[in-house]
Structure formats: structure tokens, C-alpha cells
């Protein structure tokens, strides 16, 4: 998995193009981890309270 995207300019030099879009699933995955984590936390807290 790359973090950045690179390209070569007309002189053959490597240039930074931007963030790697391989990270898009990572961004979504982090969001899902937080959401699922909170769901589990809520369920556990609910069970302890009942």
C-alpha cells in the first residue's frame, strides 16, 4: 500500500502527485472502527446497567 502518488515529469524526474487513493478504504475503515466500537461500548454499557 502506498501513501503518496508519484509521477515523472518531462525531464524524467519523480514528482509528488498527491495522496495515494489506496488510503480511501483506510479512511472508511477508521470510521467503521469508531462506529462499531461505539456500538459495542453501548451494548456492554446497556447490559451492565440492566
Amino acid at each position, binding site marked *: 500500500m502506498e501513501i503518496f502518488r508519484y509521477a515523472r515529469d518531462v525531464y524524467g524526474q519523480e514528482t509528488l502527485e498527491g495522496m495515494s487513493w489506496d488510503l480511501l478504504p483506510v479512511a472508511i475503515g477508521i*470510521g467503521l472502527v469508531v462506529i462499531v466500537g461505539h456500538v459495542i461500548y453501548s451494548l456492554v454499557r446497556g447490559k451492565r446497567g440492566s
Partner: protein
Amino acid sequence: MHGERIERHKGVDRLFHWLTAASVLTLLATGLLPVVGIRFDWVPIHWITGVVLLVLVLFHLVRSVFWQKLRCMWGIAASGRKYGKYSPAQKLMHLAMTIVILTVVATGVVMMAKVDTPFWERNPYLLSAETWGYVYVLHGAAALATVTLVMIHVYFGLIPENRMYLRAMIKGWVTREEIAVRHEWSGSK
């Protein structure tokens, strides 16, 4: 819903919130759908919506400084176990959104130099290739962070225990009883 209603968000602030939400979602869609293979002429929609977001951000900056209480969104919680108008989690979300939205708007404004508009011709030589790379990295990183933050924000906005906040952002009010459970806040701005 029983109990005395108190105003939490004025109409102009609710309109600002939902216009900003629509802008951010449009920008994410136009910026990221081509990445996953859905091809369309996304650039004009993207930069025009970006200008809308810039106007909204400037509006919010001016309004929050001159018409609202900045300390509502900064600093630690109120005394004891209750918060002021916003909980620490809400303040943290606002801070995170501030950083990423300002980053994506600022870099987006710079990137406008590479777009032909009715007001100017594109100038890709405004910055060096190396500098453009850093601009794109910041813009892309902020966009990815926005994806994560939007997911988290929408989730916490929809869960049942936060229903009063969602209603307040649509209708503008909460009841004194329900807000008093977690907040020491009398309904001032």
C-alpha cells in the same frame, strides 16, 4: 415532546449547517467517485461547490466571532459532570472539522489557479511542480480525513441518545428537561 422549549440553534445557523453538509457531501462525491471509476465531468461541479463552501466558511467565521460566543466551542467542560452548550466530544468534532475544512478550502483555493473560469485563465506555473505536489497531498489528506469525520458525525447524529441534537439542528429547539441531563446551559447563544 413535553417541557419548556428553549432555542438551541437559530434558523440561520441551521441553514448554514445543512448547506455546509450538502456542500461537503457534493465535494466528496465529485472528488472521490472518479477515483473509484465513476467517470463524469466532475471538475466544474467540484470547484463551484468549493467556492460555495468557501463563502459558507467565511460566513461562519464572521458570525461566530461577532454574533456568537466563541467560548461555547473552546475550553474545558463546565463544572461537575455537566457541560456548557457543547460537550467535549462535540467540541472535538468541531475542532477536527475546522482543521480539515480549512485545509481543504485553502488548498482548493490555490488549486483554482489550475482551472479555467469565467474570471481567469488557468496558470499551472503559479507554483513549482514540487510545491503543487505538497498542495495536492494536503488537499487529499484533508479529503480522506473528511470522509472519516463525516461517517463519525453522521453516526453520532443519528443514534437515539443524541436525538435531541438532531431535532435541534432541524427544528431549532430542545426542551429544558432533556438538555439539563447533560448540559448546564440556559439557552443563550
